[in-house]
């Protein structure tokens, strides 16, 4: 294991817009075997830690991030300058209390904040681009487990994740049943539905239809920012409830008193989505978006275990807690219940609660006091 400066793996389009950053990173000593049958060598895992590991290394909490998240869970994002993405939940005295726990959060395999992904330099000296192997959620978890090995952490106090992070937490419980004592899964699912896959495909097609995508070979030049922005806009709609959108924007016009009879962003909701889309291109690599959405679409934990979800959890002794939100239509409560039933059938100790929050899928990132209480209680 050695610490490496992975700044050079930043794609040029982002690197030219923001100063290069040295992410804290660990190079894995072994090749990482992948579900596709391939293996990746020289994998770097970029990560952050918060709080101190105790003497017997029993207080580590691994937080798994969502599709476009990263390791900056409770510290300033080096590109956007914004606070950590879960700073309300993680920190001294917060529900995930860094006075008590050491919190570890790593950039997942395939992403673009320092961990090895399609923007990284392949052994031949050029960026992988589309030569990067297609990865799965289980491959991401293999990367995380290898990182834990490197950090000398045999058993996590808890593995936590929302959305795609929840998929990783479930996958870890199923495939590495001895690595976590508790598994906390928020607003997630054990399989991607047709609707989930469909939305992702819209995003991927938007990226690949951008002439600047150039078959994924755009590093050093202009990236497919327009396509990536559209992908983000489409996805962003799925993260918010209809009620949330209506409440936030309604049919209000943006900086004008009347419709323009043109195709400018007349409505506030259009302006907001355009802002979300263009801001996203500053911090995310389009190829990573393709690879990670693919990994999510391939995710079906039951399929990995002979078609029966309960069998996926046959070997774990962990305690589980699942949380869903009543306004989340991306991974609705029924998906969490599906997992809970499987855990019940396998005899695993499991708690489940559907919380009421108006914000849709993104509720897990926003101010929902009941979620604070559930997480705090489960970690006790």
């Amino acid at each position, binding site marked *: 294991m050695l610490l490496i400066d992975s700044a050079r793996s930043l794609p040029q389009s982002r690197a030219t817009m923001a100063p290069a950053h040295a992410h804290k990173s660990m190079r894995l000593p072994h090749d990482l075997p992948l579900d596709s049958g391939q293996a990746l060598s020289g994998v770097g895992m970029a990560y952050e830690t918060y709080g101190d590991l105790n003497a017997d290394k029993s207080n580590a909490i691994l937080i798994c991030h969502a599709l476009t998240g990263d390791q900056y869970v409770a510290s300033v994002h080096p590109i956007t300058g914004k606070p950590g993405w879960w700073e309300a939940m993680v920190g001294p005295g917060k529900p995930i209390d860094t006075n008590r726990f050491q919190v570890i959060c790593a950039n997942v395999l395939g992403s673009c904040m320092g961990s090895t992904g399609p923007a990284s330099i392949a052994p031949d000296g050029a960026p992988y681009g589309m030569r990067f192997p297609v990865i799965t959620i289980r491959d991401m978890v293999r990367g995380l487990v290898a990182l834990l090995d490197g950090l000398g952490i045999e058993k996590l106090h808890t593995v936590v994740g929302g959305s795609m992070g929840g998929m990783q937490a479930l996958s870890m419980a199923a495939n590495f049943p001895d690595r976590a004592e508790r598994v906390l899964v928020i607003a997630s699912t054990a399989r991607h539905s047709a609707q989930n896959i469909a939305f992702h495909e819209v995003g991927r097609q938007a990226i690949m239809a951008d002439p600047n995508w150039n078959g994924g070979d755009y590093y050093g030049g202009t990236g497919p920012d327009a396509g990536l922005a559209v992908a983000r806009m489409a996805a962003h709609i799925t993260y918010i409830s209809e009620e949330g959108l209506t409440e936030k924007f309604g049919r209000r016009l943006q900086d004008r008193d009347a419709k323009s009879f043109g195709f400018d962003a007349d409505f506030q909701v259009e302006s907001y989505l355009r802002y979300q889309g263009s801001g996203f291109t500053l911090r995310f690599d389009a190829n990573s978006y393709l690879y990670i959405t693919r990994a999510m679409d391939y995710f079906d934990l039951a399929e990995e275990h002979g078609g029966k979800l309960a069998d996926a959890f046959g070997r774990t002794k962990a305690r589980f807690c699942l949380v869903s939100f009543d306004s989340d239509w991306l991974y609705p409560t029924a998906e969490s219940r599906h997992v809970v039933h499987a855990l019940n059938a396998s*005899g695993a100790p499991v*708690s489940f609660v559907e919380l009421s929050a108006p914000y849709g899928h993104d509720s897990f990132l926003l101010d929902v006091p009941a979620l604070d209480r*559930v997480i705090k*209680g489960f970690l006790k």
Partner: protein
Amino acid sequence: MSLRPDLAVIAQSIPRGTRVLDIGCGDGSLMAELTALSGVDARGMEIDAEQVERCVARGLSVIQGDADRDLADYPDKSFDVAILSQTLQTTRRPDLMLDQLLRVGRQAFVSFPNFGHWRMRACLTLGGRMPVTRAMPVTWYETANIHHMTIKDFNDLLALNGVNVEGCWFFAHDAVINSAGANWRAEYALYQLSR
């Protein structure tokens, strides 16, 4: 910790190491007692999200769910004991609920308020109004109790469905009373059942 008398009897009657499902577990008092007292592997189901939160905060494994709907998802005999305390009268179909309890659990503990208690009868016969008593303190339009039954009614249902009574306890003034004239004297009853 002081448990309601029917729950205390249940806690005393469950052997060590038993797998228990407490349906309508509320804030988890019974589960906590069972876990602490006798190393019971207790799981709960509760419809109210805030109560589930409290249970999770106590380190208990509780699923938010509606027993009328979600009990069907548990495998056969996945528990040694299924508990339904003071809740049967609130379910949509008590007879089907009883079937589910005895499918999911090898045994079931069921407690319910006895509508045959003399105060109830007096309220209805002499007062001409639906009873509001210490044991059933909520008015007819607010009560969650949608199926009122007496101990005799319950016995009839058990006989009709081939359910065995392993034990029964009757309560008045929060103490166990003997079974003589229980349908007049008991405010509520607890049954240990099997099939």
